[in-house]
Structures are given as C-alpha cells and as structure tokens.
C-alpha cells in the first residue's frame, strides 16, 4: 500500500477540519471494507485516512417517536441485531444482513456503503424505500438531502471536499406498513447484487389496498434510484397479483441495465420485474403483520 497518514478524531469538527485541510486527498474510514481494498489496489490514492469511528454522532443509533437516527459508521451487525429496526425498518435490516459475510458485517457501515455510491450497493435501495434523509457535515456547516439525490453516478456522490455523512434520518413508520430488501445474486451469499430491490408499502386498515409505496432499485442503472412511476401507480390500488405485476412492469420499463460479469442486460431486465413483485409481496406480508 502507498504511504498515508492516519488520524482518529473524536469530534465532528476535528474530522471535518482534517478532511478539509488535505485538498481532497483525505479519505474517511468507517468499516474500511471497501476503502482499504481500494487503497491497496491503487484504485484510490490518499494522503490521509480519517477514522470516523471515535465520533459519537457517527456511532449513534436512536429509535423513538421522531423516527430512526442511524449514525453513518454504525456497523451492519448492530443494525440487524436491533429489535426496533427489525420490526419497523426491516428493509435496512435485510440489507445489512447480506452485505458480505459475517466478518464484513461486523465492520461495514450503511453510511460507508452509501458514500461509496456503488450502483449495486445493497443498502441504498432500502434507504430509498424507507425515505431516508442524509445528514451531511462539512466546512460550511450542516445540510440535509433526500437519499435518492445523494448518488450522482458510479462511485460519485454530492459530497464536497471536507464533507462527510453524519447520519441517516428515517421518518417514523406509519401503521400497516412493511418493507423488504432483496437482491438477486448467482450464489446464495457473498456476491454483489445483479439486481437489488427495496420496497416499502403502507396499506389501509383492511390490509387490502395500498395507501402508498416506495420502490428503490439497485444494480440496474448508473446509480441506485427511486422508481417513481412504479411506486406511485400502486397508491390507492387493491393489493393483488395484477397491480403488483403492473408495478414490476413499470420498474423494468425505467431501468437502463448493462451486460457485465455479473449478469446480462436481458437478465437484469427480466429479473427486475420478478424481484420487484417478490419484494412487494413480502413487504405486504409484513405490513399485514
């Protein structure tokens, strides 16, 4: 590995200061499960690694009436071991439980997964479905943006030099809601998503009609994105195979998949529809309790 310095600040201000001072050549470190590999292989170069795990705000995990606050560096295992998240924000627990193996989940964070802005990031479609807001801190202060506007392209995001993700904020979950994330991979574990679908649904009291839905798609375009049309067409519709199938068709009609070592364009097109249906059905099952 090329030489670099390492700092582990204990305050947000110090972290932002360190990152801002190094002309964009500093890299924030949370779980390191992508960063260390990228630095080792020379895909990323850095003069300074700033370890964020000693900053309380980034390690916070709070669930109350106001919703969920998830510190950007909280490791995956804490997320899927959290009873409240499992109960109410299930999609993000689903994602956290399948990112890499157990050893990766003990280090990797959702904030890091998001910041890397991979098209196939497993947590981002779930964040989109659950309407997360990204809280960003930088030299110019704090700002918040909706998660579906965070990634701008493969490996690219809206962060300016010196900015870091502090936490993800999720609104409280309404009654009769459920969510799910699932991906297709060739093996049963350890792979990068070929197609990833996160969905959240809110049903009416009868459990027979959609009040609203949000579908996030991954690995089928340059970045994970909110499948707006597919989501909105479900509002007010009855829960049945036909409407769910329509949403699946709408999802596959807006994607721009490529052929690569993980899957073909044809495969991604077809499986996006299939997976969207399966994920919606599971989310409905959870919403019905």
């Amino acid at each position, binding site marked *: 590995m090329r030489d670099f310095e390492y700092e582990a600040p204990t305050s947000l201000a110090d972290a932002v200061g360190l990152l801002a001072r190094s002309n964009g050549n500093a890299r924030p470190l949370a779980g390191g499960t992508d960063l260390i590999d990228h630095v080792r292989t020379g895909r990323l170069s850095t003069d300074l690694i700033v370890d964020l795990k000693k900053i309380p705000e980034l390690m916070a995990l709070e669930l109350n009436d106001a919703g969920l606050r998830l510190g950007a560096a909280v490791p995956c295992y804490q997320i899927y071991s959290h009873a409240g998240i499992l109960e109410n924000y299930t999609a993000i627990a689903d994602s956290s439980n399948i990112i890499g193996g157990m050893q990766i989940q003990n280090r990797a964070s959702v904030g890091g997964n998001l910041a890397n802005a991979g098209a196939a990031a497993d947590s981002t479609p779930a964040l989109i479905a659950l309407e997360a807001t990204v809280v960003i801190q930088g030299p110019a202060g704090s700002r918040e943006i909706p998660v579906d506007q965070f990634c701008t392209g493969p490996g690219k995001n809206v962060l300016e030099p010196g900015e870091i993700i502090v936490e993800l904020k999720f609104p409280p979950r309404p009654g009769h809601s459920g969510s799910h994330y699932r991906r297709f991979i060739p093996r049963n574990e350890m792979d990068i998503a070929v197609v990833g679908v996160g969905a959240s649904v809110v049903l009416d009291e009868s459990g027979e009609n959609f009040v609203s839905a949000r579908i996030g798609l991954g690995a089928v375009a340059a970045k994970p994105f909110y499948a707006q049309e597919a989501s909105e067409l479900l509002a007010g519709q009855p829960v049945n195979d036909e409407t769910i199938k329509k949403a699946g068709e709408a999802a596959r009609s807006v994607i721009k998949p490529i052929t*690569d070592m993980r*899957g073909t364009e044809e495969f991604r097109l077809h499986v996006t529809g299939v997976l969207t249906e399966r994920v919606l059905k599971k989310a409905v099952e959870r919403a019905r309790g």
Partner: protein
Amino acid sequence: MATIDETRTAEGSEETPKYKVIGTRPIRHDGSDKVTGRALYGADIKVKGMIFGAVLRSPHAHANIKSIDTSKAEAFPGVRAVVTSADLPEPGDKIAELGEGAVVLNHLSSNNLARTKVLYKGHAVAAVAADNLHIAQEAASLIEVEYEVLPPVMNVLKAMEDDAPVLNPDVRTEEASTGETGDKPSNIAKHIVFEKGDLEKGFADAKYVVEREFRTSTVHQGYIEPHVATVLWNNDGQITVWTPTQGTFSVRSQMAELLHVPLARVKVVPAEIGGGFGGKISVYLAPAAAVLSRKAGVPVQIVMDRADVLQATGPTPGSFIRIKMGVDADGRLTAAEAWMAYEAGGYPGSPIGAGAMCVFSCYDIPNGRVEGYDVCVNKPRTNAYRAPGATNAAFATETVVDELCEQMGMSPLEFRLLNASKEGTRRIDGVTYPRIGLVETLEAIKNSEHYNTPLTGENQGRGIGSGFWFNAGLKSAVTATVNSDGSVGLLEGSTDIGGSRTAIAMQFAEAIGLAAEDIKPAVVDTDSVGYTDVTGGSRVTYATGWAAYEAAQDLKRQIVSRAAELWEVDPDLVSYEDGSVIGPDKSMTFKEIAIELSLGGEPLVGRGVSNHNEPGGAFGTHLVDVEVDPDTGKVDILRYTAAQDCGTAIHPAYVEGQIQGGAVQGIGWGLNEEYWYDEAGSMRNANFLDYRIPTCYDLPMIDPIIVEVPNPGHPYGVRGVGEVPIVPPPAALEAAIYDAVGVRMYELPMSPPRVLHELLKKES
C-alpha cells in the same frame, strides 16, 4: 476415534475386516499443527535476513515488449534489486523433462519473466526486491515498459482461423501420431487423432443419432493459498527454495534448467501447501526470487495476491467440443465421434491429450473417432487441474448420452449399465481396461436411497453423470527410521496436500503391524529423501503408499535376519507375522525387537521405492437433485450423492473428503465459475468476489458412497481417488436442469443468465 459420519460401503460391509489399520480413521499426524495455526505454509516461512519482492505484470493481453527501463525503480529508496528476463539465462530451444511431461524451456522461462512478448494480462515482466513489500510494490510501479499492443486472441475457434494473430512465432502444429510439425507458425500447437473400428458403418447401424456443440469457460483451481516462493542464492552458489509445491523434485529440476545450474546446487524445502489441485507444480516466482536473491545477497520472498493468482497462474482450459453419438434399437452404442479444441493459454500445453482419451472413457464403443487440438490464446498458460481435460469432455459426452436416452425413452442409469466400460473394454485411443469398477458405481447409485426416493416438487429435476480418470504411478521413495522405543519415523518426498502423510503411514503401519499413531511421517526436502514425483495424478496414496509398504518389507527382512543372529538360530526358522518376529522358541513384537536391537548393532533403517504403473483407472457416478427458479434461472442443489470406485479406502474419512471436495469443485465449474474477459482481453473478475467458487451456503451435504473394487495392481488394492469426483458434476447438473425445467444447456457455466436466457427462448 470418533467420527460423526459413517462410511457407507456398497459391498463387503458385513465381512470381517481384512485389515487392522487400513479402513480406520485415525487423527491425521499433522492435524494438531493445522488446527492451532502452528503449521507453516508458504508465506509463513521466515528466513533470517529475508527481504520482499513484487512483480510487475503486463496490463495488456498481447503485446511486444519494445523496452524496459528499470532505473527509477532501482533508485527508489529501500530497493535492493531489480530483475527482468535479461537476468535469466537464455533458454535456447531445449526441451526438458521436468516431472510433469516435456516442457519447452523457452516457454517456461518466458512465462516466469516475459522475454520479447507478453501473452496475457498479468504476464510477469520484471521483479523488485526491497526492504518491505510496500516499497517493492511502489518501486515495481515505477518500471517503465514500452509495449507495442497487439490484437488479443481470446477464443479457441478464433485462434484456429488462418488469419488469426499468432502468439508464438516458434510454435508449429505437431501431428501427435507422426511427430511431424507444420511449416509455418500457428496457434495450433498439436493435433491428435484416435480411431477405432468403422465410424461410417457404426453410424449407419444407429437408430438414434445426436450431435451437439459445447462450450466451456476457463476456470481456476482456486486454492486458497496464493503462490509464494522464498529463495536464498547463497554466497557459495547453493540455492535453497522454500515453497509450497506439489513436487519438490520438479521444482528442483525446473530451477536447475531455468537458472542453468547443476541439479545438486538446488535444494527445495517444502512448506505446508494450502491447496494445489494441479496448479502448484510449475514455478512462477522462484526463478525471479532466485536472481533477485543473487543480486541482493539475502533471501527474497515473493507472494502473489489473489488477482495475480487468477490472472497469471492456473487455469484449466476453456474449450469447444462437438460430440456425435449413435445407438441401435436395443440401446447399444454403435459409434461416437468427438472434435475437441482446448485453449492452452499463452503457451502450448493444454490437457487435450487427456481430454481426448477421457471423452468416451465410460463407454464400450465399437466404432469411434476423436480429434483434438491444443490451441494458444491470450490467457494464462494453462496447468493441470484435477483430472485435467476430463471434465470438459464428460460434460459434452454425458449430455449427449442424456439426450439419446430421452429419445429412446430409456433410463440414463440403465443405458449406462448396458454400455459401461468394463474389464476388457478397449478405449478409442487403444487402451484396454483391466479390472475397473464403473458398473459397481452405477449399481451403488441404483441401490441408493437417493435414487429410490422420487422427486415431488415443481421445477425439480434429477440428473446423473459418470466420469473417469487414469490415475498415475510414477516414482516414490520412502525411508523408515526405527527409534529406540520402537516407534518409526517415515521420511517421504510426497508433499501432503490433503492428508496423505496419514494414508502413507497407515499402509506402513499395516505392513509392519503397528498402529498408525506409532508412525511419525515427515515430508522432507530434496536433499533428505529419494527422488519422488509430484503429488498429482492421484498417485500418492497408491505409489508412495507402495514405497512405504516396501520399506516395511525391507525392515521385516532386516529384523528377521537380526533376530536370527540375536537368538542364534537359522534365519530360515524365523519369520515376521502380524507385527511380531517369530523364532522356533521365541517371539517378540516389533517394539520389543526394536528396543532390543537398539541396544547393540547397527541402526534399523528401512528403504522403500516404487515405480509401478498399474494405478487402476477409477470411475465415479454422481446423482444430483436440483430446483430451478423458472423466473431467474437460478439452480439450487437439493441433494447430491457421489459413488466412486476407490479400490481400497485407506482412510475412509479422507477418501470421502476427496469425493466431496471434488464434487463441489465440479459444481462450481458447472454453475458459476468462469473467467470473464472484456474486449481488450482483460479479466474483469480476478478476485474471490466475482470469481465465484461455492460457499458452504450454496450446498447441501454431499453424500459419498465408497465403492471398493480392489486394484489388482497394488499390494492393498489402492486406486487413486482425488481426481475422478470433479468430472461428473457439470454433466449431472445439466441433466438435472433439463429434467427440472426442460431446457438444454450446452455452455458452461450454467449460470442464472444463461439458464434464464434458455427459459425465455423456450417461452417465446
């Protein structure tokens, strides 16, 4: 000792045991070191004063090297030496026997450090040694290489076209039957033809004929331990190599030839080896480490990373195979024809010969023709991988057989029982089988609970496939040193890749009448034991086991004669039976006599060698149930049973392990593993994330059935075990997928996108 799983033996399970040690399951002798982290593998070797090397590798799949400028690397602080191919002796046009067949030295040398051309992405071009790995890597990146990039040739059929760019100007097509070579450079290095009977008549006699084309992807052995070599070129010219290898003596020969030094100046010390499967025989790092060490004056260690391993070592060929087979109205095979082209990688040497011999090896076929081609492409130089060449071939043949059975409405198992090779069957390449056990493996499957349990679920299917491997004999040497407490040290040259120390010690123990635990086996360096061929060809338990048996016979003879002296009786009145030496009025156990003899007279040392070549080919038949997701094409394995003729299972737990491990490698090959290249000839999945070997979550338990048809060509009936089980899985899976969802798969791997593609095609 306790084990959870019991061996299920297809026959003879109720007989009284023939052996005392053979067939039991002792704890392996090297076990404790391997579960406590104490065992020293290649990269665990630390030699005093050692520095670290890094290799600069080609970013191009095919290019001429115009110039190499190492000056910036040499000037980098902490760098101790830099080498290129100019630091290796000119190999000329010599062909050398290096323990695994003849090798063109120029090709082997150029594969270690490229001379005039790079032939695949990842081809080694230069190497740096420095105070630490980080410095070596950074310095290597400062070496400036000027390339003239050439169009890459990535596919076997394209490489065979007349106007294809030629990789090696010195390669001309050799006709295997005559030894004649072509008159112009070609990517086709070898052409093989085998014929038997009258092919035309055979097909004329057929009622059903199926002809299909198959493609298989390049796959890697995937051992978890990357290649590593540590070399000291000492001031006196003595060279010591510490490396995990399947053949210390092969490494010694390769080093002597590549470095132009006398054999006796090279000592190879085996580290524990973290997997090989055929891929750790050729040298990749040791020659560069040697010349770096000579320049730096200290030992140099070079370790590959996973990307290097995938891009520059190993793989087994991608292939194109066309198979045509015919059967008569009774379901008997009348004719078979194969046309096979295997990708050799950058330099000649694919296992096309073995593939061409194996392609119809499971069947008694009166009329046949097999044509094979060894073809250079811009991929890493291929190397042996578990039954090299046989899996590609079996996938093609067994799939055609499955289709024939479907056309005839005949059970694939009954078809195989009717047409199976047996003692006296002559293969198309001319070899006639001795006593073999294919029929017995088919019967074992037929009688298995698995076979007799019908599938019930939707989209589920069952498939069967058989496979063959020759196995090898070759040379082995063992020295048995008797200690004064009656225990025995066993020195051997076969590096232990999966428990062979114990399998060899058990055969010695059986022969001398001791317990396995009384024997202390040690794998030693090339200066400390007689010549021993590679750990490969499923030969170690057979051949080194036989050498151990001979060492026991030698000791017995010595003990009989020494006991006669001691007891002052005629040696003819003394015998050695069942672990004791017996005289007219006295008898002593091995331990008693060993202790007695240690008190006076010469030390007791036994010597055993073997060079027998009746290894008894081995066959396996696998049965698999799958469920296919019709909407994604994903194949889940529900149940797997593998029956194999093992001759005699010396240590059944490790025999089962070989069967299970081989089957799972075959499953990976069948379902997911492939080299994925872009148009520039760059492998895009050179890591364990996207080169997808099976994880434990992809598999059920693998049920082994050990079939024992003793090999008449071995004192204990041993046949090789390790290689056969990789052969049947892709074919068995193909048949199961077809049974489940009705699509035929003619290309490996049968990955979800490919299966789904066929399903969508079928729908529309």
